[in-house]
């Protein structure tokens, strides 16, 4: 580590001289000498919001230096190995920090650079390439992982203004800028500063367009949501027909393991609960395409002791066209049941909202049948009206199910404060899109449709309010409290479910990124370190409450 003399190549005294090594940099010297006007602590406001202290007068050169830095860092790995060795302090003093970085790069210690190589310069900024030992591409292989780690270590600054953790999804600096711009825009909306928000959302749009990969797509959807929030007061809920919604969910089912995980783990929980039942009645709170039930029917068909008779009540949205899609689904399931030899009965219920359901609608036969209630990504929608969830859970309790299986997103997108919701959602959907990105073996239409499916959720979380906002995800911990207060006890999911889930993920493309975790009897599927969906099972509390 070099400890050089404190360099002030800038005639203006800086408030905090960098304590990292800062060798003289001839490159930046030539550019900035004589450009400075004397200025005192006139910090730029916009950047101050983001936590950077940059003088308005210095903005131009800081921008230039950042461009240089980006060019160098994105070009090769030499920069990253160098930067790993040096300690940089106080990045919020952006000007000094960038100069330190640049000086490091311009005077590298490593000797394995080709001194005769010249990099193309960005002449618009008046930079001239300096031959010799400068940090120009030396043709070494990129190690993306080291770059990512380096930027993350740089990013873990302790400036109190940046109390939110920033997710660096992409190794390039535009990714960081993009995230900062998104968060700044959300903050502006939170503060009701719509003019600033308007400016920022436009900049997000341009930044996102230039960013390839998952981060760019996520940012585009978030920008869409933010724009909708800024520009329209009464948010028109995007009304698409239920058939499109179901089609999008089918693509999501095909392209990634989340829904399959949900179905297979819920099925295993149901199987374990109905081992001795002769008649099984399942109430599916969101039938969609009924993809969950063939596998359950097959498992019931081969269980020791012979199959029970299987009755399914599927709930779907109100039918708009004359065709009764619920009944068609029922017929298809009946065909399957006949193939595997399970006695099958189907009933379809159309309901606008789940809270409209009454216990009598299900026509349960409590003496003869074992009742199961299943909900995959349906319960959170009911949180948009006060009292709805309690009514629904009371209805569910009234039919006396033996087991309730529940799969929900593991995120808190239902907070009162918009900014917190926004940040949570940004993290959550970044991870989700990241996982889609890594599934390289997908046909592109599937992935695009899955992204549209998720994008609609993003726009709803960000821009909708009141009863329009249906994507009110809550964490497993919150659901546990809710279910416990209504009178349900948790049922632990067994190791079979865990093993099946592990096997499913091991064969999925990008399988190393997916993680199954057992969390106090519930199973969570996540990407890298972030849990994304959680499966849990519940039964009626046995002991009477005092």
């Amino acid at each position, binding site marked *: 580590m070099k400890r050089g003399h404190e360099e002030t190549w800038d005639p203006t005294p800086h408030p905090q001289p960098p304590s990292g090594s800062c060798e003289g940099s001839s490159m930046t010297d030539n550019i900035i000498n004589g450009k400075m006007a004397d200025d005192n602590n006139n910090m730029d406001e916009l950047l101050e919001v983001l936590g950077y202290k940059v003088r308005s007068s210095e903005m131009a050169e800081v921008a230039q230096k950042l461009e240089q830095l980006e060019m160098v860092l994105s070009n090769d790995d030499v920069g990253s190995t160098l930067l790993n060795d040096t300690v940089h302090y106080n990045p919020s003093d952006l000007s000094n920090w960038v100069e330190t970085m640049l000086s490091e790069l311009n005077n590298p210690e490593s000797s394995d650079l080709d001194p005769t190589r010249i990099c193309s310069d960005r002449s618009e900024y008046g930079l001239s390439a300096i031959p010799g030992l400068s940090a120009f591409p030396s043709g070494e292989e990129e190690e993306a992982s080291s770059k990512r780690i380096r930027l993350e270590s740089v990013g873990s600054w302790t400036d109190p203004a940046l109390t939110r953790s920033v997710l660096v999804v992409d190794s390039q600096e535009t990714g960081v800028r993009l995230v900062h711009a998104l968060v700044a825009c959300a903050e502006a909306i939170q503060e009701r500063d719509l003019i600033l928000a308007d400016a920022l959302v436009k900049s997000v749009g341009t930044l996102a367009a230039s960013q390839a990969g998952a981060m760019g797509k996520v940012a585009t959807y978030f920008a869409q949501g933010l724009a909708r929030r800024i520009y329209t007061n009464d948010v028109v809920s995007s009304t698409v027909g239920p058939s499109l919604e179901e089609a999008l969910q089918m693509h999501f089912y095909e392209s990634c393991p989340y829904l399959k995980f949900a179905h297979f783990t819920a099925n295993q929980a149901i199987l374990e609960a109905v081992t001795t039942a002769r008649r099984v009645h399942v109430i599916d709170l969101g039938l969609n395409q009924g993809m969950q039930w063939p596998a359950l029917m*097959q498992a019931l068909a*081969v269980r020791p002791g012979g199959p029970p008779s299987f009755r399914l009540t599927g709930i779907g949205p109100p039918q708009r066209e004359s065709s009764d899609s619920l009944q068609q689904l029922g017929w298809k399931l009946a065909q*399957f049941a006949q193939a595997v030899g399970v006695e099958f009965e189907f009933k379809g219920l159309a309901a606008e909202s789940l809270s409209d359901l009454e216990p009598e609608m299900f026509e349960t036969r409590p003496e003869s049948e074992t009742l199961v209630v299943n909900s995959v990504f349906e319960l959170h929608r009911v949180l948009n009206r006060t009292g709805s969830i309690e009514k629904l859970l009371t209805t569910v309790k009234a039919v006396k199910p033996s087991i309730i299986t529940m799969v929900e997103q593991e995120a808190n997108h239902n907070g009162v404060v918009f900014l917190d919701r926004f940040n949570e959602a940004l993290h959550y959907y970044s991870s989700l899109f990241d996982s889609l990105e890594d599934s390289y073996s997908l046909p592109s239409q599937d992935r695009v449709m899955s992204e549209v499916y998720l994008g609609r959720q993003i726009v709803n979380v960000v821009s909708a309010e009141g009863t329009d906002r249906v994507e009110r995800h809550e964490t497993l911990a919150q659901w546990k409290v809710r279910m416990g207060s209504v009178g349900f006890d948790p049922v632990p999911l067994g190791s079979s479910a865990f093993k*099946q889930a592990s096997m499913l993920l091991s*064969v*999925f493309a990008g*399988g190393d990124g997916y993680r199954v975790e057992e969390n106090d009897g519930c199973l969570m599927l996540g990407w890298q370190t972030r849990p994304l969906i959680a499966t849990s099972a519940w039964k009626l509390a046995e002991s009477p409450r005092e």
Partner: protein
Amino acid sequence: MSEKRIGMVEKSNNKRQRVNLVPTFSINDHHDVLVEILRRLDGPSLCSAACVCRLWSAVARNDSIWEELCFRQVSPRPSLSLRSVVSALGGYRCLYFLCIRPVLARVPKIIWSRDQLQLSLSLYCVHYYERLHVGAWIGDAPPSSLMFLRKPVNVV
């Protein structure tokens, strides 16, 4: 693979006559024995055997061979009721090719027990269900939820 041992015997009148030293046994005449042999092969060998000749290819389509292959490491053995279910869904051979072989290719050291078999069967059910009633699906083509198993894996 037919083995005929033809011995040459010197007869007293110095005429050589063909005498069968052992009764001729052609495996191709005994399909049940062939099936028993093929049942003990592993997947790749079985596929090679199916390429030997048309007869062997036809014999290799016998589902019991593939059933044995699917259940070889599973203990306890699944009940017989599974056989009728799998036959209805398309047979063990399709089950193997669709749901088991890709898994073994991706995770060679997998321990194949009841849970893994159940998962394969679940995926097989999904596959069958998607092909029911093709016209009823939204869009033109039936969904292909098992596509993730079929695509080649880029091992990095």
